[in-house]
């Protein structure tokens, strides 16, 4: 097991007070805090190694390139991809999904084709598909979910057909924390000749994820939710699929050659090798360095330990939240099928009131739709409050959270 008290020493922000109370940070599903090691790595990069990467011969560029490429390799190893040719750096999960939607969808979808998503998806795994479907006269089909927020696999099976070209599913719901059996969904997609994209924004930071085991064609995740900086994320894609895909953005870095033909008065362009084909322009080198350090930090803890710690906290929190007057947890309470996040409400109060009340006591939770409006509509909720845990959270913090929730219940 991990020691959250020791881990907390690495997070400078956790020492601060908010509204004269010690900070309790329970908004980890939105973004995580950063350990000193990540902050130092970013500082060290800018103080000692900053340069643009690739195609320069000077020392600093060589150092920056080495760091940037090593970051790709480390990400690949972290998720058990074949190598850096399968790990494309993007701004975050949203850009990763848009990359697939446009670079693949624009060139491969045709009238009548179908994309299957689920009703529990984050908007970033719905909107790009609706946009590309509208452009290509294809359609998006929505897999239902059960009353407890778990995926309805029967609905998924019924939706799949030879028309299905892409199946998009979150590994872990960003609202309920439900962990989907994505291996099963990927298998179903492949049996129907479709590709499968897994939104790993809420799984990669919190549990061991092995792309070979999942057999997913794509996996998207963000650095900032896993102790890394904002503005860096990853699109994993199977090498043979990425090779067959057209690029997303055009510009420098993603080309091998741009040669002007005076006869045709056009440029002949050929693409760079993977993963650079999908990384147009100067990349977020420093973000990659920060992400690499975050991965090293998580690996020292062990992803199995991260998962176990969050399960302990969730098991601890659920009955205590339920014991609070007027409090209600949404979705399943079964911690064997969910990660460390708990959506809840207090009868008679909006989620924003609850969040503001907690904020008054230095406790940070999120309120609203959490970019998952269809799921809230299914639950018939106008919004929800969400507490989400990570490696530095403790039972004592949950105790304090419960004390304040009990106070809110009296309001």
């Amino acid at each position: 097991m991990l020691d959250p008290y020791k881990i907390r020493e690495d997070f400078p922000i956790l020492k601060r007070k908010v509204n004269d109370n010690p900070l309790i940070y329970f908004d980890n599903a939105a973004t995580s805090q950063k350990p000193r090691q990540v902050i130092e790595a970013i500082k060290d990069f800018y103080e000692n190694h900053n340069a643009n990467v690739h195609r320069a011969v000077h020392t600093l560029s060589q150092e920056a390139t080495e760091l940037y490429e090593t970051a790709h390799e480390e990400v690949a190893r972290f998720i058990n991809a074949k190598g850096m040719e399968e790990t494309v750096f993007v701004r975050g999960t949203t850009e990763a999904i848009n990359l697939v939607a446009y670079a693949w969808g624009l060139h491969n979808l045709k009238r009548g084709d179908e994309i299957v998503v689920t009703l529990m998806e984050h908007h970033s795994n719905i909107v790009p598909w609706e946009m590309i479907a509208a452009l290509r006269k294809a359609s998006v089909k929505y897999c239902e979910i059960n009353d407890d927020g778990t995926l309805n696999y029967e609905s998924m099976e019924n939706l799949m057909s030879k028309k299905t070209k892409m199946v998009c599913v979150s590994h872990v719901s960003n609202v309920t924390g439900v962990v989907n059996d994505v291996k099963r969904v990927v298998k179903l997609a492949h049996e129907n000749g479709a590709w499968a994209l897994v939104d790993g924004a809420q799984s990669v930071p919190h549990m061991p994820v092995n792309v070979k085991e999942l057999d997913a064609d794509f996996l998207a995740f963000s650095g900032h939710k896993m102790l890394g900086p904002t503005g860096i994320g990853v699109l994993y894609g199977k090498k043979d699929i990425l090779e067959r895909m057209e690029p997303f953005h055009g510009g420098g870095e993603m080309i091998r050659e741009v040669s002007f033909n005076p006869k045709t008065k056009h440029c002949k362009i050929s693409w760079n090798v993977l993963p650079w084909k999908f990384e147009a322009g100067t990349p977020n080198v420093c973000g990659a360095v920060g992400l690499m350090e975050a991965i090293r930090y998580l690996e020292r803890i062990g992803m199995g330990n991260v998962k176990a710690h969050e399960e302990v906290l969730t098991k601890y929190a659920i009955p205590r939240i339920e014991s609070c007057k007027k409090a209600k947890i949404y979705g399943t309470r079964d911690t064997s099928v969910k990660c460390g996040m708990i959506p809840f409400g207090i009868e008679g109060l909006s989620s924003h009131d609850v969040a503001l009340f907690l904020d008054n006591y230095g406790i940070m939770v999120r309120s609203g739709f959490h970019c998952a409006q269809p799921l809230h509509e299914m639950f018939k909720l106008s919004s929800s409050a969400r507490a989400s845990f990570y490696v530095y959270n403790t039972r004592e913090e949950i105790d304090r959270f419960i004390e304040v929730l009990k106070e809110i219940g009296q309001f």
Partner: protein
Amino acid sequence: MVTVDDYVARTEGTCGKEQDVIVIFKFEKKDEAVKRILVKATLKKSIAGIVFELTFKNFSFRLYGSGKAIFRDLKNKEELNALLSELLT
């Protein structure tokens, strides 16, 4: 002359079906803003002197000692500004 901008740092529409607006007061002026509002609005309920359920001209809202307030059922930004103007100036 005192204006709403002297007190308000930011207003933010909430995410969700409720069309609530959160008003965040400037840190250095938050205590003064809370005091001014408490003088003008009618107190319905409070907890530990840090959360106040208030009404003012048929509008109900909550005010937090941390320097934030949440207003409900407002038609538009103009209505919010008029309300804040009456409460703060």
